[in-house]
């Protein structure tokens, strides 16, 4: 009983930290530009495929698994940043002053475009993500499994989140970012180059998605072009749960969602796995629309 409980916590943490990393990308873009970057989930998917091909290409040449893992993660992050910035430049920047509905529709369009392009380029069939690191059981008690992959996933995500926290709280760029998310027009008047800050936000968000994609590929080695859809939705739910625009909230929301899912699968049924996220979303939006850590600003005339 206790072992099953602990096992669910382990599984939930590993899954939740991936959600948290993706949720951070949503929440940061939302904080700065006030729109849902639907394409974010597909950037995550592209990151997984970038890692897939990079690992195939690198694995004969590199023998050290740690070095291989690090280089694949960095490569995927770089690729995601490139895609994220291209999307921002081509699709979102021309619409900066357009009504929000148009930006939303464009974002959905970009997302569909990437998904369907992925299906043509990579094929619709799932691919097996190469295991970069041999799975080792660290703690093989009765009914309790903890392997090195899960530890790596949690540690890498934690490191990235702490790094992000440091950037946002203690660097000049981070201060500028917070200023832009508080009020973009006033920030601009104060001499903050808002376009640069927005580029910077997309860079961070996309790179986190890239890292999350590799971590996901390590723990669930089956990737396909529609992989991002569900993860993206759940990460979005996590972002809303924590209070969208709030970085701490996204991290906590991701973990909570991962745990909730693990417990649902174990104690109720695995068919409700995907429904629980929407359930949480609807519940949160009805009773605390600003999220757990969010502040609600009432619109004034």
């Amino acid at each position, binding site marked *: 009983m206790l072992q099953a409980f602990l096992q669910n916590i382990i599984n939930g943490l590993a899954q939740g930290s991936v959600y948290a990393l993706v949720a951070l990308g949503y929440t940061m873009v*939302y904080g700065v530009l006030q729109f849902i970057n639907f394409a974010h989930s597909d950037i995550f998917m592209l990151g997984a495929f970038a890692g897939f091909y990079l690992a195939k290409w690198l694995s004969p040449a590199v023998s050290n698994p740690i070095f291989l893992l690090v280089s694949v993660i960095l490569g995927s992050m770089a690729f995601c940043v490139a895609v994220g910035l291209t999307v921002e430049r081509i699709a979102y920047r021309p619409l900066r002053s357009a009504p929000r509905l148009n930006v939303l529709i*464009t974002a959905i369009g*970009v997302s569909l475009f990437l998904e369907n392009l992925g299906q043509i380029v990579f094929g619709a069939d799932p691919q097996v993500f190469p295991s970069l690191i041999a799975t080792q059981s660290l703690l093989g008690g009765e009914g309790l499994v903890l392997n090195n992959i899960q530890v790596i996933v949690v540690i890498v995500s934690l490191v990235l989140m702490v790094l992000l926290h440091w950037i946002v709280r203690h660097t000049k760029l981070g201060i500028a970012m917070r200023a832009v998310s508080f009020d973009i027009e006033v920030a601009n008047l104060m001499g903050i180059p808002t376009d640069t800050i927005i580029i910077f936000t997309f860079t961070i968000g996309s790179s986190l998605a890239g890292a999350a994609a590799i971590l996901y590929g390590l723990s669930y080695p089956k990737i396909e072009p529609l992989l991002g859809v569900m993860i993206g939705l759940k990460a979005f739910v996590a972002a809303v749960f924590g209070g969208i625009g709030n970085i701490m909230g996204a991290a906590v929301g991701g973990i909570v969602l991962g745990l909730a899912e693990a417990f649902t699968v174990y104690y109720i049924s695995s068919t409700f796995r995907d429904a629980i996220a929407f359930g949480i979303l609807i519940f949160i939006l009805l009773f605390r629309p600003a999220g757990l850590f969010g502040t609600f600003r009432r619109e004034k005339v």
Partner: protein
Amino acid sequence: MKIFQVAILLGVVALLWGLNFFFEENINPYILRVIINCGIGMILAMSLNLVNGCAGQFSLGHAGFMGVGAYMSATITTVLNLSPFFQTDLGVGCAIVTGGIAAAIAGYLVGLPSLRLKGDYLAIVTLGFGEIIRICFLNIESVGGARGLSGIPPKSNFFWVYLWVVITFVALLRLLRSSYGRAILSVRENEIAAESMGIDISRYKIVAFVVSSFFAGIAGGLFAHLQSFIDPNSFVFNKSIEAVIMVVIGGMGSLSGAIFGGIIVSLLPELLRVFEQYRMVIFPLILIILMLVRPMGLLGHKEIWEIFRKKASS
């Protein structure tokens, strides 16, 4: 005046009836099928236009309501086996209306909590509800579950589909020109201003949502009785997106634009059949380019006759 309207109505029905016979005799079945599909697309587009375009509430769950209508009507005609009446044209018509009413009720239940939200949140919540509706059908074994529901009487022909196109068009046009319609438009333009003018904005949002769901349910019922087979995969998220694209292409808030969009989006897959594989890449590209170049859609808020009238006067 009244007699005049009745005469027009009868004329339209007779015209559709005649065209139905003409088409079934003289047009190859494939093309007729495409034409009927366009009709269903038009109903879907016009209904979503009321919420997305006129009330300005971005809904991404339209396929869910279409699914409710389709499943409800198909359940009546196929699963329940009530009486042979429901195998006839008229019986199927009744079943489709029931499907529409069921969809309207679903719309009310979904709209009541979610219309308190705005913009992106509303989009994502309606998306969530749409998916939940689909997952429900997936888990109800009596309507086939994941296997789907087959053997539905294929009663949707040109006449019935286009009769519903006309009904939808007239009903929505009348609604938009009434005080209800003006109130719904004012919600889109500025909620705060509308509220301070004494308009109960949540009420009008719900009205728009319920009416829209009703017609989406009708479109679903017609769809079910055209394909004679439905499964939960007929009502996935992509179907909602397709409906949104119809509205956006035509121009948000323009009824004739929605008809236009419905035709384009239903025809495009047939025209692009050569590029079958690239179809779903070209669709979103069109959407993005449209948003960048002509964000209001082809017609904008205007109706097609307004544009011609302006040209004629100037």
